[in-house]
C-alpha cells in the first residue's frame, strides 16, 4: 500500500504534529520508501509462532517500597514550563467556551 498525502496527514493528526501539504508529500514519499524496504524484508520470514518480544528482561520487574516522599522543588519544576500563572502550569481553555 502506497502512503499518500491524505494518509500522511491523518497520521500527523494522530501524532499531533501540524504539517502543511507540501511537507506531507515529502514525508509520505520517504515513509513509502521505508515501508517498501521493510515489507519486502519482513515477507521473507515465515509467520511462525514465535512469542513477540517487547522487552529483553525476562526477570521480574524490580519494585521499591511504597513510601510517601516529598519532592520539594516546585519552583524548579515549574521553571521548565514556558507559561505559568499563580504557581501552576497555564494552558488555553480545553473546553470550547462558545
Amino acid at each position: 500500500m502506497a502512503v499518500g498525502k491524505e494518509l500522511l496527514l491523518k497520521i500527523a493528526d494522530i501524532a499531533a504534529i501540524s504539517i502543511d501539504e507540501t511537507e506531507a508529500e515529502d514525508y509520505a514519499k520517504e515513509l513509502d520508501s521505508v515501508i517498501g524496504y521493510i515489507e519486502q524484508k519482513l515477507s521473507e520470514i515465515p509467520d511462525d509462532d514465535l512469542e513477540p518480544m517487547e522487552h529483553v528482561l525476562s526477570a521480574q520487574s524490580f519494585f521499591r517500597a511504597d513510601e510517601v516522599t516529598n519532592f520539594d522543588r516546585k519552583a524548579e519544576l515549574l521553571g521548565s514550563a514556558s507559561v505559568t500563572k499563580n504557581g501552576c502550569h497555564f494552558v488555553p481553555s480545553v473546553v470550547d467556551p462558545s
Partner: protein
Amino acid sequence: MSILNMTIKEISELLKNRKIGTVELVRHYLDSIRRQNPSLNSFVTTCEEDALEASEKAQKLIDSNDNTSLLCGIPFGIKDNICVRGIRTTAGSKMLSDFVPAYSSTVVNRLVEANAVILGKLNMNEFSMKESKEGNIFGFVRNPWNKEYAEGGLSEGTAAAVSGDMACFALGSDSGGELRQAASFCGVVGLKPTYGLVSRYGLISSASSMDQIGPVTRSVEDCAAVMSVIAGQDPLDSTSVGRSENYLKDIDKGIKGLRVGVPKEFFGSEVNTEIKESISRALENLGQEGAIYKEISIPSIKYILPAHYIISSAEASSNLARYDGIRFGHRSPDARNISEVYRFSRKEGFGREVKQRILTGTYFLSSENRERLYYKALKIRRMIFNDFRKAFENLDVLVAPVCPEVACKLTDVSGDKDHLLKMHISDVYTAGLNLTGLPGLTVPCGLDKNKLPIGIQIVGREFSEKLLLQVGYAIEKTVGKLSPGEGDKYGI
C-alpha cells in the same frame, strides 16, 4: 605524555602522590576545551564554576584521606540527554533548548558521590536519531584525528571529547550503536552494557527498551573503573538489575581457552578490507594469547535492520508524545487553543528527521499495521535473541566490526539522503545488541591508510561485562593506546 591524554589510573596516581592538584587538573581540561572545542564542537555547555568548586572539594578529600575513589577529582563530560540538576539538558533538540532539569540522573549522582568532576554537556544528534540534512541544533562534531572528518555522520560529542583531550572520560548512551560507533571512529573505548545493568533514571528516552547508558574512555581499565561506579540496581529504575561487580579486579587475568565466534554475516563484501584485515590481526593476537576462534553463522543478522527500525520508531513515537509544550519544552507562541499548543509546538520544536521517525512509528503502531509490522518486528526480535543465545551455548564471546567503514569526510555527510540510508544500514553491526540487550565493547584495533581509527567489537552474554573487559584488555595490550597526540603540544 600530557596530563590531557593520560588514563584515569595514571592521573589518579599523580593526584594521590601530590604531583598535581585537582584544581590544576580541571583548569588544564577547561583550557583544553576553550582551545579545541571551537573546532571540534564536542561540548555544548561547560560548567566552569561548578567544576572548580567540585575539584576543590575533591582536593580536600585527597588531602585528608588516602582511600579516596579512583575517580576522585577526575574531570568528565556527559552526553546532553542525561539529566544533571540545574544544568541545561537539550537532547540536541530545539524542543528542549532551554530545559533545566530539577533532578540528576542516577549515573551522574553516583559519579558525583565518587567525587568525579562534571566539566559540561556533550553534543548529540537530536534525540539520538541520525540526521543528514540539518544536523542538530548545535551542528556537526568533528573528528579529533582529522578535523575534515565526521564521526561517520554522527554528532556524538562523547568520543570526540575523550579522544580530543577535553575530558578524561564521558558518559554516553546507545540506542542503536551510536556510543560504540563514535568511540570506534575516534579511536577510544566504548561499552554498551547489558540492558538493565546501568540505571536509565534521568536519561531522556528515545527507544526505551533499547536505550542504555555507558562509558566512553581512553583505556579498557578506565572503562572498568567507570562501570564499577555506575552499574547496579537503582530504586528509581524498575528495569535496573543488581548485578554490579568490581570490573577492575582480574582484568589482566588473560584469555587462555577463550572460545571466540566470528559470525560470517558480519564480514560480508560491504565491510572495508582494511577493517577486515585489522580485525583478523586482532584475532590472530588473541589466538597467540590462547584463545580459540572459529567462523560461525547467525542467519537472522540480516533482519536486524528492519526489526530495529520498526521498534525504535514505534517506541520513539510513543516516548516523544510527552512533548506537549505545556510542562516543559518549546511552546509555540502562535497557538490559540489547546490543540494548537500540541500541534504547533511539536511542529516547531522537533527537527525534520525526528518528525519523520514519529510519523513512521505512529504508522507502525496504527491498528491496521500493528499486527502486520510492529508485532512481526517483535517476533523477529525474539528470533534474533534466540539465535544469539544459541551461538553462546558453545562460545564465550563473538567479534564483529563496529561499522563497515571508517569515519567519512564531513563534506560527504551534509545534505545527502543516500548517506542517511547508508548510515542506517551500517547500524546492522551494532543494533542487534540493542534488540537483544546483550553487552558490546568496542576497542581500537588499528589505523587505516589515512590514519583514521578502526575498532573491533566484542559481544558477550548478558552480564558478561567482566569477561568483555578482560578480552578488551588483552587486545589493547597488543595494539597499544591510540591517540591523535594533539594533547602533547600543550603538555604540562
